[in-house]
């Protein structure tokens, strides 16, 4: 029964229903310039993916770009609480994928920044419920409408990870200067598709600890991961306060963390913003390495 088999295989490739549904929501202009789709991922949980997604989204919106942040953590969503939008969530990503509502029904607009929208994840469903190809299609639809599509990836490397990555053209790998976080980041980099553009953000750097030698420096981290460094974010208690309140940390006055996220957003827009030295970047080992020409500058 070769015909039958082909039918089955064709089904996901051409989800006729879904595309027609989604097209209704898209502006009718003929060839659309696609926005950038960027997944924020890490492997290890709790290194700051959601915080990074929320703050970069906010900073990009402040720079006048239209931004949608997508929560891909089905069943354990948190982007809504970090942005303080949890009260306004009614429909979610799976509703759109399953055609229970339109894209616009599910998108939640930020109260202050009208060009920042949230696509919430379903909380009462499982990650296996999301078909990868439909997720890719959804991201593509969003790219037609927004200049930036930031996707907040769940921890781990299971189906949720695959769903978050499938539609992305770029990836921001977030890690902290801890052995386990670096190892997990390395694992994730190896699993990302080859054609994806990779950038590194080192989060939760505590300069004092680096100086004491009780924390790896950014150079140590990147001697292993060897990616383009997009930014370094210092650790601050303001993050906890910001999450308590549901405001992005970039809105907290005088926050070093917030300033770091703003700089990263500017780098994403192509500006040449130097990475300030939160630390003495070269420690003993990296100095020797670079003398031998083995380290990366």
């Amino acid at each position, binding site marked *: 029964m070769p015909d039958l088999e082909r039918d089955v295989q064709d089904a996901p490739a051409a989800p006729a229903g879904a595309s027609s549904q989604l097209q209704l929501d898209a502006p009718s202009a003929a060839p659309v310039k696609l926005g950038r789709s960027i997944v924020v991922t890490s492997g290890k949980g709790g290194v700051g993916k959601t915080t990074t997604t929320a703050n970069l989204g906010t900073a990009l919106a402040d720079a006048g770009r239209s931004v949608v942040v997508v929560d891909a953590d089905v069943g354990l969503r948190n982007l809504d609480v970090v942005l*303080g939008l949890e009260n306004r969530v009614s429909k979610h990503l799976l509703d759109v994928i399953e055609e229970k509502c339109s894209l616009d029904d599910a998108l939640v607009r930020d109260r202050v920044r009208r060009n920042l929208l949230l696509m919430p994840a379903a909380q009462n469903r499982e990650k296996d419920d999301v078909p990868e190809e439909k997720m890719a299609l959804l991201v593509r639809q969003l790219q037609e409408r927004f200049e930036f599509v930031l996707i907040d990836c769940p921890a781990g490397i299971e189906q949720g990870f695959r769903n978050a990555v499938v539609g992305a053209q770029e990836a921001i790998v977030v890690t902290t200067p801890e052995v386990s976080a670096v190892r997990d980041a390395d694992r994730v980099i190896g699993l990302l598709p080859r054609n994806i553009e990779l950038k590194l953000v080192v989060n939760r750097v505590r300069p004092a600890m680096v100086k004491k030698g009780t924390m790896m420096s950014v150079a140590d981290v990147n001697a292993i991961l060897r990616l383009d460094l997009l930014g370094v974010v210092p650790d601050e208690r303001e993050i906890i306060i910001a999450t308590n309140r549901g405001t992005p940390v970039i809105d907290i006055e005088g926050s070093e963390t917030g300033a770091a996220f703003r700089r990263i957003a500017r780098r994403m827009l192509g500006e040449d913003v130097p990475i300030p030295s939160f630390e003495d970047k070269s420690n003993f080992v990296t100095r020797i390495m670079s003398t031998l020409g083995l380290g990366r500058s």
Partner: protein
Amino acid sequence: MIDFLAKFFRREEASSSRARERLRLVLMSDRVSLAPDIFDAMKGEMLDVLRRYLEIDERGMDVHFENAERQFALMANIPVREVKTHDAIALARRVAVPEGAEFTSAKQTASADAANGSAAQQATMTVPRRRRRRRARTAAIAPLASQPNDDAGTPQSNDDAGTPQPNDDAGAPPPSG
């Protein structure tokens, strides 16, 4: 030090109390959305009670939870065609509640609360803030036992006994079913 004092006395809103408030709301909504079957059951039972007093237009009915600014609320918009006569109500109640059992049977406690609180005229009901929280959770946890990923596969009724809920009010309604 000045900074500290300023912080100490100003403190129009400690962020932890804000966190507490937000969590309270979001968890209630999470817990409720975890159990669509329970929600449907509740809606059905609520309706059973209302029907004894009112003629209801079921097609125009809308019951859902809303997470408004500082309140987690059950919003019920139920079009009423007609209020029944005293006799009709008496008859309906006798059929529904035999031998003066009132509304305290396990199956109907939730709906009884709803009926007592809002009677027939008030279409919008608000779950009071603190008190009701535990109940909401009891209901939300129960159905999980029947989900496929639960290896025990135990009937819902055992769940209450097995789940330690130290401060649970004794009067919390067991889940229906």
